[in-house]
């Protein structure tokens, strides 16, 4: 057993694993009970498992937990809650932006990373920022509208 200390959604965590190569995604879902980050491919291709590591969007399905020591991880659960939604989450609800919703956690994280860097993205910039996330149901336009709406709300609040 090897122990790794890092922070998830603002809380210090200490994780012990048999295999240092255990993916961050498995640690989040199986050790920490944070199932909002979904498994999609395990190949870093679909974006379902996107989290922020020190504010950068990272696909967590192949990211070894041993590389997380001392880092700050944010998952979809860390964005907000039903009681206190992040503006992105509220905008996704308002726009009913999703069908099956399996891709949404990863997309919310990618969108958060985009808005941190670029508070006023164009539709094209949003699309390119989300190209690393696959949506198979075809909710793309709703999702992009929701990101635009959240950006406007966040700009007005800042």
């Amino acid at each position, binding site marked *: 057993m090897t122990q790794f200390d890092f922070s998830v959604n603002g809380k210090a965590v200490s994780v012990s694993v*048999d295999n240092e190569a255990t993916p961050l995604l498995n640690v989040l879902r199986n050790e920490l009970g944070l199932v909002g980050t979904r*498994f999609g491919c395990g190949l870093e291709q679909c974006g379902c498992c996107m989290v922020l590591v020190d504010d950068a969007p990272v696909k967590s399905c192949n990211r070894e937990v041993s590389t997380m020591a001392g880092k700050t991880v944010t998952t979809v659960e860390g964005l907000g809650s*039903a009681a206190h939604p992040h503006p992105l989450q509220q905008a996704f609800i308002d726009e009913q932006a999703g069908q099956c919703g399996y891709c949404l*956690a990863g997309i919310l994280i990618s969108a958060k990373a985009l808005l941190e860097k670029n508070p006023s993205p164009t539709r094209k910039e949003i699309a390119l920022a989300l190209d690393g996330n696959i949506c198979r149901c075809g909710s793309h336009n*709703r999702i992009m509208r929701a990101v635009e709406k959240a950006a406007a709300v966040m700009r007005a609040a800042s």
Partner: protein
Amino acid sequence: MNAPVLPGTLNDNPVLERWVTFPAPGTITVNTGRVELGQGVLTAMQQVAADELFVSMSRVTVHSGDTIEAPNEGYTAGSQSIQTGAVALRQACADVRALFLAQAAAIIGCKASELGIRDGSIVRNGLSTGQDYWTLAGAIDLSAKATGTGARKAVADFMTIGHEAPRLDLPAKIFGDAAFIHDMKLDGMVHARVVRQPNRGATIGAIDEAAIKRAAKGPVEFIKNGNFLAIVGDNETAVDLAGAAAVNHVSWQNVERPTPLQQEANWLLQQPTVDRVLGSPEPADPQGRERFERTFTRGFVAHASISPSCGLALYKDGVMTVWTHCQGVFPLRAALARTLKLEPSAIVVNHVQGSGCYGHNGADDAAADAAIIAMQKPGTPVRVRWRREEEFVYEPKSPSMVVKVRALLDAAGKPADWTAEIWSGNHNGRPGGGSSLLGEEALPGYVAPPPAGEVPEAAGGGATRNAEPLYDIADKRIVHHKIVEQPVRVSALRGLGATANVFALECCIDELAERVGQDPLAYRLSITSDPRARAVIEKAAAMANWDPKAPGGEGHGRGFAFARYKNKAAYCAVVVELDVEEAISLRHVWCATDAGLVVSPDGVLNQLEGGIIQAASWVLKEQVRFDNDAPTGPSPFDWETYPVLKFSEVPEITIVLLNTKDEVPLGVGEVTGGPVAAAIGNAVSHALGTRVRDLPLTRERITATLLKE
């Protein structure tokens, strides 16, 4: 006396308490056999029940998709949930309401017609009577059968149907709750991965257990039954690593791989066929009429669900309990009974949401995998999650198709006789339909069932779906060649044969219009008498500012297409505007749809938008290839070898709904596929001045067609 003919699936499930119960004061539970696949159907059912029971939506809890309490409505498929499921629920609620009003009238001593219901309370002359659903419930026998005589609410009086209702299932997905079957955790649960039999009949040679265990870097156990091999353990990472390593450390005999030749639709033309003709025989003599013939093809297409399939099972005290994201819990129970050699009464199947499936993907098979393993580990809950590569290779594919259209034209260049000749595998490979659960094929003593039957024409047909034009043509027929032996498993994908058939039909209509120098829109209207069809055609044209004189060529084009799904469901007309250089970029899609009564307006728009984007993805990008290198079995592929439409590639979409207050609702999940495929085909032809008749319309195909010209 004959039983009454009841609406939709109420006929098969007439007992009222299968649909509606009043479990506690102030609350109502409605059951539906339909399951949530991301289409928002449970929210629509809540709207229907609340309206017909005259209560606020918050009083209604929707219970869905188990084999104990929910009605048996077969599969959640074929755009039937609203068309046959919601109408059944609505009538059940109307019958229940009538029983309560009759009981209240007897107690109060008045006529039932003097009473009304306000949020569950019985009112007379607008005043409370002191009675409500819950005070009366004890005296009402809901084990009675529906009569279909309860008066349904008038469309004009709807309070929730046709109004916006936020989806019940979305918040959990947006806040990262345990929304999916993948997120289920049962006490003492073990993880499992299956080492897949490459094909039916393949047998295990050698298993290098030591190498697999080394790769696992943690304890794992092997479960073997015949040629069914699984790796099981407490630690998902170890099981995952072992499962991936096993692909290279288990050898198989009698492996049959699909060949690159088989990936092309024209392979079908060389195969033995089972033939039938639907309609009058084709005239041998054209009687002087000009003959027109074109051939269209489409390759195999994957469902490509975003989540690999997942199933959980627990075998305890002689009862097998299964959790699955499949489309039909009752058919799966029947198939599992055969696989596990258990009585159906000893199996409970519960639906839990997965990702969108768009048809028959690996969901049933993953559930069977879990159950097969659970049989060997009584008392231990087993969770199987397929690997991404496993889902791509082993999910049943939508079969490839060749569609040859032959028409005889009258003096004005209009079709007088129409033949659609189709070569296709079966679009119905669902468990219970004559096919097997994948894991079952690897078990000892497996005997393949006889081939599955086609989807009946009464249900819209499979390979033949929408092959017959809705246009005014005197003689029409379908010649259907079924190719039974397929290189991979084939089954239902959203729209079944309609995508390729409407692509062929509607591209031909454009070619025929062009032949007589007519605007394709005007040509369509000249052979369309169905007023609802004319309405969507004219609406889509108006939305897109359709210009009959818009110049083509130069790499910019627009295309039109129309279909009525299954020729008896929703109407849909589509205009596509796009640019073609080497590849296609979609600019805008306009869509006019008449789906009759709309329960959930935004839900309908969401389904139509999704259908448009998915169809665009099929047409621009998607074909399952068999020409990749593979160490074992069929070619593996992933999101790089099977790309789908990306955010930066989706078009703007504008949709208008017509006729939304009609009494009869028509499903919308599959209505857009054919029209979008054909409108893109027509727009590409308009942009290039040459036509590509083989799907997908990839960069390579477009370049090859241009070079041939």
